[in-house]
């Protein structure tokens, strides 16, 4: 065709236009290439860190020893297929003066870049907690790659590394077991409640609140617990066990609460969703159990006659009788239910008061968060006493009110015990 050659001769501007368009296209496509694959991370080149453990450096040369629990995805998959793979996770340990330094130094031991976006737990050993935990959470708050909803726990009597190196039976990934343990306990028994890094940060704000963290220990032989053999036994040789809440003052571990006091703290912080309260039967030998199904705690701050704050705790519970191990409890009568409600309220009140006593007298730590309540409700009092809250707190008066409504007695009436 003669068309083409003629068009080329006549249509120089057109050719130039096409050329310009092509140049533009070329530039745009270069843009795609030049921008490269910024931040591209291959999934199979990542070591997903699920938990951080902080111990003291045993050699004493540096300030801390960091242990990370890293998932081995190939083994997780092997387990789901029913094959016998290795352990689902492994740990790496490195010394350092700061956490970040230790993390980066860890590349001398890992073939993959450590990836912290899915980290779920920060485990701090008892010794390290006694030295203070505030320095340890700064990295987590500061670094955009690490979430701040990481659950923090203290190991009681064992090193954090041991806790992370323990194999577990119910969850193939041990961190899941530790993590879920706290959640499940909080929902069903409420001895402990989860504390996140962001909660700790918030507490350091106005109100001079002190921290309380859940604690964990290892029951059994912790050396045996490191091997996969551990989970092939029934029961396992070593298992992680949730212990009571650990109370801090100025970021340093002071002591642990007793189980009863620990749940008292949960009541104070309105962390109880459901729990069981054991009561002595009113008229006969034996016990009955009330399951608390709903619970709400309101804290009111009143001004006392001496100008000091008076804390009022109002607990409203709804529950049901779940177990009666004594004869003669006529649950079909309303006055019996009312009486049991009274008893429940009394029992809960005792728990809460024992916690308050412990915090005020022995520990002298405002882990109840009353400073914050005063700051929120009675700011003028707070302004006056803020300076010496540490000495004022043990003397703050408090009152606990508790009302319980018993809604039922399960799907059975009288106990079969006569």
């Amino acid at each position, binding site marked *: 065709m003669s068309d083409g050659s003629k068009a080329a001769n006549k249509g120089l501007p057109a050719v130039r236009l096409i050329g310009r368009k092509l140049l533009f296209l070329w530039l745009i496509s270069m843009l795609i290439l030049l921008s490269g694959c910024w931040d591209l991370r291959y999934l199979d080149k990542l070591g997903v860190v699920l938990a951080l453990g902080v111990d003291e450096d045993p050699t004493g040369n540096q300030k801390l020893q960091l242990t990370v629990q890293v998932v081995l995805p190939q083994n997780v998959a092997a387990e789901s297929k029913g094959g016998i793979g290795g352990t689902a996770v492994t740990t790496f340990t490195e010394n350092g003066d700061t956490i970040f330094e230790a993390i980066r130094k860890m590349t001398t031991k890992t073939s993959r870049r450590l990836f912290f976006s899915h980290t*779920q737990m920060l485990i701090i050993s008892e010794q390290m907690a006694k030295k203070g935990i505030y320095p340890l959470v700064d990295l987590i708050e500061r670094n955009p790659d690490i979430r701040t909803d990481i659950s923090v726990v203290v190991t009681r009597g064992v090193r954090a590394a041991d806790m992370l190196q323990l194999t577990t039976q119910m969850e193939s990934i041990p961190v899941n077991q530790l993590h879920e343990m706290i959640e499940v306990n909080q929902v069903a028994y409420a001895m402990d409640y989860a504390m996140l890094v962001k909660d700790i940060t918030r507490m350091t704000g106005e109100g001079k609140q002190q921290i309380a963290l859940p604690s964990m220990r290892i029951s059994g032989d912790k050396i045996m617990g490191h091997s996969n053999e551990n989970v092939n036994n029934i029961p396992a040789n070593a298992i992680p066990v949730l212990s009571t809440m650990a109370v801090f003052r100025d970021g340093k571990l002071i002591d642990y609460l007793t189980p009863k006091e620990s749940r008292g703290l949960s009541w104070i912080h309105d962390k109880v969703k459901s729990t069981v309260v054991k009561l002595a039967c009113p008229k006969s030998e034996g016990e009955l159990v009330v399951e608390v199904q709903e619970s709400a705690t309101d804290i009111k701050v009143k001004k006392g006659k001496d100008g000091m704050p008076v804390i009022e705790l109002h607990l409203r519970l709804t529950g049901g009788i779940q177990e009666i191990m004594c004869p003669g409890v006529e649950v079909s009568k309303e006055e019996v239910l009312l009486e049991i409600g009274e008893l429940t309220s009394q029992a809960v009140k005792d728990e809460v008061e024992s916690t308050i006593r412990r915090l005020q007298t022995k520990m002298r730590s405002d882990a109840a968060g009353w400073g914050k309540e005063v700051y929120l409700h009675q700011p003028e009092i707070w302004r006056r006493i803020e300076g010496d809250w540490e000495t004022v707190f043990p003397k703050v008066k408090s009152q606990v009110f508790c009302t319980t409504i018993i809604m039922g007695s399960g799907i059975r009436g009288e106990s079969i015990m006569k």
Partner: protein
Amino acid sequence: MLRPTGQGKGKADKKAGKRPAKAERHEQEQLDPFADKPLFKSLTQNLEAIKRELGESQDIIFRELLLTDVRRTKALIVYVQGMIDDERMNEFIIQPLHRDLFPQDGSLEPQEMLELMKSSQLSTGIVTDISDWKLLFQKLFMGYCIIFVEGADQAVGANVIGGARRGVEEPKTEMAIRGPREGFTESIRTNTSLLRRKIRSPKLWMEQWTIGEISQTPVSIMYVKGLADENVLKDLRERLEGINIDGILESGYIEELITDQVWSPFPTIMSIERPDAVAGNLLEGRIAILVDGTPFVLIVPSILNMFFQASEDYYQRFDIATFLRMLRFVSFMIALLMPSVYVAIVGYHQEMIPTQLLLKLAAQREGVPFPAYLEAFIMELVFEILREAVVRMPSAAGNTISIVGGLVIGQSVVEAGIVSPAVVIVVSFTAIASFVSPNYSLGIAARLLRFFLLLAASTLGFYGIGVVVLMLLLHLSNLRSFGMPYIKPFAPMFLKDMKDTLVRAPLWLMRERPQKLASGNRIRQSIETEPRKEPEQ
């Protein structure tokens, strides 16, 4: 040469100076020497002329016969074998011509004999006078038989169109569970009649052109007078008349030649195979373009929303129809975005997925030799190849493809560890989602754009996807179909039209026709159609 506005700016304009000259030359070659010349008086001359012009093609049948007048005048019937109905030909043309009808005194001129034939002998519906060659050939190839009489410089064409054509069958592309089972066929007459049977109104008007210098294809437009926008009609007529091409073999030719925007993956003219769907569109004030030789009827103006509407939506209850509408929108999004979102998450945004899912994905990626984006790209390509193969291959090979495609590619590739199962899941789900669209042509847009998005996701992650989606939105809001904004009623917003978009409101609520579409007569039903409540006792 007239070109529709705004299309084909590239090459067409540059050659604009040359095109007309070429077209004229082309016309001359084609129709010379017969263009408008009259027929010959001599039968032999006419016969010779036809034979010479058609290169003595064997399927042209010349049937000579002697008429019954006293002079035994010679007559000639010409037709194309296979295009006429032989029985009708015998019964209504040849037999009557043998009958003793003409006056035996020999007083009739040949011309008068033709007239008599027309009025009293030929018993078919359509009979036409033919005086020039152009018309003669047009009619001949439409399936008329042409009757010459010795001594007359005119001929008569009689409609005995027949021969094998596909009957009215269920449409192959737009299935429906509830609704009419009939689909358009390749015959334009059948198709117009199918529409007439849906809309029995004198207001259903039709205009016809013959387009294609060589193919001489009949092209009709149909619309409801008073509902269709006169401006759109005028525009459409201009665009159709501006077409100058050798042949129109399918409505796709027309679509591409009159479309507003060629450089877009989104179809701005819709093609439909269902008469009920076309009728519905006509009632909303749109215009149908029917092309002979294809069951696909074009609708203008077409907007994006229409591609999510299935005719079945209006036959089912509005609640399920609304649910299905939303499902289609979601499926379109999935078909468009899922592979790229997967690639972006796995490559850039690992923190966004739940930990357990991340671990599963990571476990699957373990030992896979290719990066995720390459993997997704390969699998998408494999799927497209499979799909194309299935469409084109002889149906006897169907099982082979499904075994090879499903088993070998799906299973073995994963078992061999070359591709991770997650990618196979993503690609196959995308594939299924892309078939949800009731109209095929929108699925094509999603198919093409998917690769583009994949590229953006693999280089820039979610940021890249965001940029491309924004570009697409800009592009969509720039598109027009015969002056109609493509993403109407979303942008510009027409609240009243929203009743037939993501939701399909009950029919009695959709009292008005789409805005900016129906001219003048906007109300489609009276208020009385609203269901009456039970009278209160």
